């Protein structure tokens, strides 16, 4: 705890988080806004970060954890280097998103909602990004692939994962 406190303190992101809380006057009802900001800054909400927020806003840590775990957008674990989101809105489902989803699970050895073993790829399911006219949609690292097929998605993912391996060498 002590160590991560220091790590938190020495971080520029922490200053930005502090500024956000100050802007909301450390109000208890700004918790969701603060969690949103924290996730934007850090990418996910780990235990230390939640404890830090709970102390700053004078809220019980159980309350902060309760809120963070209630909402789907908050990630409590570190996501992989690459992120793929499969939209499972009604339109995408009707147009075969499930098939794409299971194909990714099979080919890249990752389960929905989880990150694969070597921390390279996280697979998430989202409920409708609202681009229903071009369903099914798959979002790879923030880029929307419309009218997706499992082949296109698989190619795009393989390319991403491979490039990184080459870079690492």
């Amino acid at each position, binding site marked *: 705890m002590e160590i991560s406190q220091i790590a938190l303190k020495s971080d520029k992101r922490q200053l930005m988080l502090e500024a956000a809380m100050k802007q909301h006057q450390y109000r*208890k009802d700004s918790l969701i806004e603060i969690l949103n900001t924290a996730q934007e800054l850090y990418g996910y909400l780990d235990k230390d970060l939640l404890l830090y927020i709970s102390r700053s806003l004078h809220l019980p840590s159980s309350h902060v954890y309760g809120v963070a775990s209630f*909402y789907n957008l*908050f990630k409590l674990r570190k996501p992989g280097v690459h992120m793929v989101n499969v939209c499972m809105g009604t339109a995408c489902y*009707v147009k075969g998103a499930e098939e794409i989803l299971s194909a990714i699970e099979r080919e890249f050895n990752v389960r929905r909602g989880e990150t694969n073993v070597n921390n390279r790829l996280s697979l998430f399911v989202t409920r409708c990004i609202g681009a229903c006219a071009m369903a099914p949609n798959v979002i790879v690292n923030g880029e929307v692939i419309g009218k997706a097929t499992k082949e296109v998605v698989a190619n795009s993912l393989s390319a991403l994962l491979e490039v990184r391996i080459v870079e690492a060498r």
Partner: protein
Amino acid sequence: MKPDELKRIAEKEFELRRSYVHRINVCCSSGCVPFGALKVLKAFEDAVREFNVEGKCKVARTGCIGTCYVGPAVLVEPGDYLYQSVTPETAYEIIREHVVDEKPVKHLLYANEGFFKKQLRLVLRNAGKIDPFRVEDYIAFGGYSALLKALTSMNPLEVIENVITSGLRGRGGAGFPAGLKLSFVAKAPGPPKYIVANLDEGDPGVFANRTLAEADPHSIIEGMTIAAYAVGAEQGYIYIRGEYPLAVQTLRKAIDHVGSIGLIGRNIFETSFSFNVELRLGAGAFVAGEETAILASIEGRRAMPRPRPPYPASSGLWGKPTLINNVETLANIPLIILNGGAWFSKIGMPSCTGTKCFSLTGKIKNPGLIEVPMGITLRDVVFNIGDGVPEGRKFKTVQVGGPSGGCLPVELLDLSIDYDSLTKAGAIMGSGGIVVMDDESCMVDTAKFFTEFCVDESCGKCTPCRIGLFKMYKVLEGITCGEGTLEDLTQLEDLGNFIKEASLCGLGQTGPNPVLTTLRYFRDEYISHIVERKCPAGKCFKAQRKEEVET
């Protein structure tokens, strides 16, 4: 802001508009951006410079035109020439031929007139024609003049009376008379009082509210401010889904903008009325759209509904009287104030006035965003506006009202779209989603999909919803894996009706609808799954086979 300043801004904007011949509106909403709309926008700007027609032609970034299936869509004024599937290359072609040579590029024009013919665009009147990032655009189209009229020539009671006369009902799904709700909050003791605009459009397959926010954010803010004046609220919150980054950005900018020119803030139009708006972001909880859950979420807590009464109108945010309205409801209010409640009451049908925005998606030729008068038939929407299902397939069902709506069969296509008819048929208006399915969709699997969604999104507070829906899901899973029995069907019906009766909030009260309606209209599909172990659409029984292979 002073009252006459509004007119001045509008005139200045008109002058600007008169200075060029053509205006090129490039749709850059969430639907068109993935198709490359931003590249097209840049291509237009480059082309205008290259052909040296900067003085003659204005390129504008706008919101949704509605024809999402042929994006990026570009609307060229005057004449409202709508170009479809524009690419950076064809953008050059349009500038060269349409702007320079004054000849519309025929082969790129959108040819399907049926899509717009049966629509009536009131709430979306500005969508696709104004730049959502510029309040001046909105003002030039008559924006904020309803607010001026309300504040300077009407008292709050007159505003409420107009809304009551209009017959406007809540567009969030439940259809509660909007005028009545206003009068409840107006009568409640205060200050403080609050107003909440609900933009937590969590239903998968629905994007009508988001598109409104992206295309015309000021219509929401103006409607909200008028409603706040009517009930005596000084603080408003727009609660928006965190999954809508562009809508968040658009609204945030719009709020800052009106704040800076004094259209909201202290003493609006030099009256004693002051009003502020804040944006609150959701974080991915479908149940947060429920009116007591949204309050909990704004207060920074888990979005869990609570029993009513007390209703939010008497005890809402921080225990104070609060008006909660869907953003589409609010966007109707400026129109009612400008044209009068009596004018509005003649649109649509007598028991259900006005229009409704729908996102039309699924297995349909023309998916997109539409606005239709209340009382139009489902057939008109699916076959005239949407142009039916793609070639070679057969229409099977239309699902109305999001995940907790109902699946209606071909026999009910002549049903009119209004709150009462839809509820009677087992569906709901919901927040405006129409999903069409063809014979490739299995109704049991579809019911399972929606039930799974509701199981995921149940907040867990009350038992019927938390455990009941899960039980229903398990039974459906059994049927799709080939383990179903005929008794399962009775069990599903019993469970479904019980959950509807006993749940605390709208999620549980409507969650069983997909199962109950498919049981009502597509029972033979369930039976063939159970008796013949066959899925007519060829979707089911795969899950089990997959597991067998793995083990």
